[in-house]
């Protein structure tokens, strides 16, 4: 279970109000896609969920417990850039979470413990399709591979919540479609609640169970400081997508396979369902 509740949350930077009175309940295992114009506070919102920033007013709770203003292992994150460590190999990057957990002082694992951790990491690396690249450094990977690596690295912690800030924004459409398939599978297979910021409406409606939009109701230059963005749209995708359950309406290769549903040759809409 990992229900996130925001109660009348405000965020201000100095005199500038960024977010106004955001009240929101994100159900456990939801996949929330967050959209909105540039500068409206999407990253700020994510930072508050992450604990990097504290709300100026209001409280955020995860499973009823108020969030402390510090990132922790229950909330994983993938940024658009700089999500992986350039000085560690693919394997080293994925192992790091395990190492931190098991070895508080030396921050290194040895012997059987190390082998067990490596086995687990290798499974995740294979899961995200990076097998064969274990010994490469991030600078030797493509952008898409780096983001897959970032996903694997976050998922080894088995976080309750996964926060994504335009994670696939810099990828070309082909690679992005591929990573969408992966993302959907991971969401179905793991106990994750996902909040993803994106600029891509198509991505929002392809992946999300719910699409939320932030917008500034007053956006004249002289008003920009005094009025923040509010939650302007909240759309539940219909027909509903449920984590771990195949959708009978728009089965596509991303969802778990079921017997009924359209045949392979039918022109199934790829998840672009009008609410």
């Amino acid at each position, binding site marked *: 279970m990992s229900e996130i509740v925001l109660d009348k949350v405000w965020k201000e930077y100095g005199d500038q109000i960024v977010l106004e009175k955001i009240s929101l309940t994100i159900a456990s295992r939801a996949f929330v896609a967050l959209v909105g114009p540039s500068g409206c506070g999407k990253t700020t919102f994510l930072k508050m969920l992450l604990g990097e920033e504290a709300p100026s007013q209001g409280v955020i709770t995860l499973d009823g417990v108020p969030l402390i203003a510090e990132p922790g292992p229950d909330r994983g994150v993938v940024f658009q850039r700089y999500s992986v460590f350039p000085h560690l190999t693919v394997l080293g990057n994925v192992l*790091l979470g395990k190492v931190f957990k098991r070895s508080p002082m030396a921050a290194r694992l040895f012997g059987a413990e190390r082998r067990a951790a490596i086995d687990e990491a290798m499974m995740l690396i294979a899961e995200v399709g990076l097998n064969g690249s274990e010994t490469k450094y991030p600078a030797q990977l493509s952008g898409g591979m780096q983001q897959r690596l970032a996903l694997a690295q976050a998922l080894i912690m088995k976080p309750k919540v996964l926060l994504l800030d335009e994670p696939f924004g810099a990828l070309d459409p082909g690679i992005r479609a591929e990573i969408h398939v992966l993302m959907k599978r991971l969401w179905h297979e793991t106990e994750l609640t996902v909040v993803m910021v994106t600029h891509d409406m198509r991505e929002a409606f392809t992946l999300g169970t719910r699409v939320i939009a932030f917008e500034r109701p007053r956006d004249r230059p002289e008003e920009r400081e005094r009025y923040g963005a509010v939650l302007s749209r909240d759309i539940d995708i219909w027909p509903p997508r449920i984590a771990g359950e195949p959708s009978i309406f728009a089965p596509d290769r991303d969802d778990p396979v079921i017997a009924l549903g359209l045949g392979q040759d039918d022109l199934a809409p790829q998840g672009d369902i009008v609410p």
Partner: protein
Amino acid sequence: MALKIFTTKRHKPMRWINTKPTRATQIALMLAPFVLLIVAYGFTSAARLADNPADKLLPALQTLTDAVNRMAFQPDPRTGEYLLWSDTGASLVRLFSALGISTLIALFFGMVIGMLPYVRALLAPFVATISMVPPLALLPILFIVLGLGETSKITLIVIGVAPAMIRDLALKVLELPREQTIKAETLGGSSWQIALRVVLPQVLPRLITCLRLQLGPAWLFLIAAEAISSDSGLGYRIFLVRRYLSMDIIFPYVLWITLLAAITNFALDRLRIAVFPWSNLEAR
């Protein structure tokens, strides 16, 4: 009509910034200034000696090699030591112990200043101020307080290079993308674990580069200290024989110091690439 663009008659020469030498030209160009310098020296020296055979300012190449032979391969009649090597040993021990100490100090303080806001508030302005003190002005004080032995010379070099290294490393730590620290925190890392596995490995390559850049100042302070008070060392020898206008010894010593510094510089860079291969991937 549009094709005309591609058939313009005027051949436009390539921009200078895009013309590159071939490998052979590159080597030739690299050697040229050195050869030129030696040739120029040879001619000037020959001209001066033709004027006045007793001239000591620019000794003939033969005189220089004789001096090298005397200093490096024949024992000194008074002490029985091979002077070039005993001087080199004495100087390098001082230089490397000072650089070692500076490196450790810089690593520790650079990391805590870069990582911990409280320590940064406490020490960053202090270190910035200290780094403005001209170290040579402190030399008399060091000699009085620490005596004329090795301690004062090593301390001078440390005071001369450590503050700059601390500031550089602290900056490097602060330059690490914020995302990386956040990411490490979401992986459950404590401050200590993040220092050990995320920050330290990423500042070590920079530490080596920083050390290379400080080689010049370190040699400067070493020779200054040796010139003033010492009984061995490369700087000591140069300033000793200066009294007799022994250019035949000074020139080879200067060359030798330059060579030592250049080799250290090169070796440190190789070391960085060998130990931190990823640090060269980034630079492309």
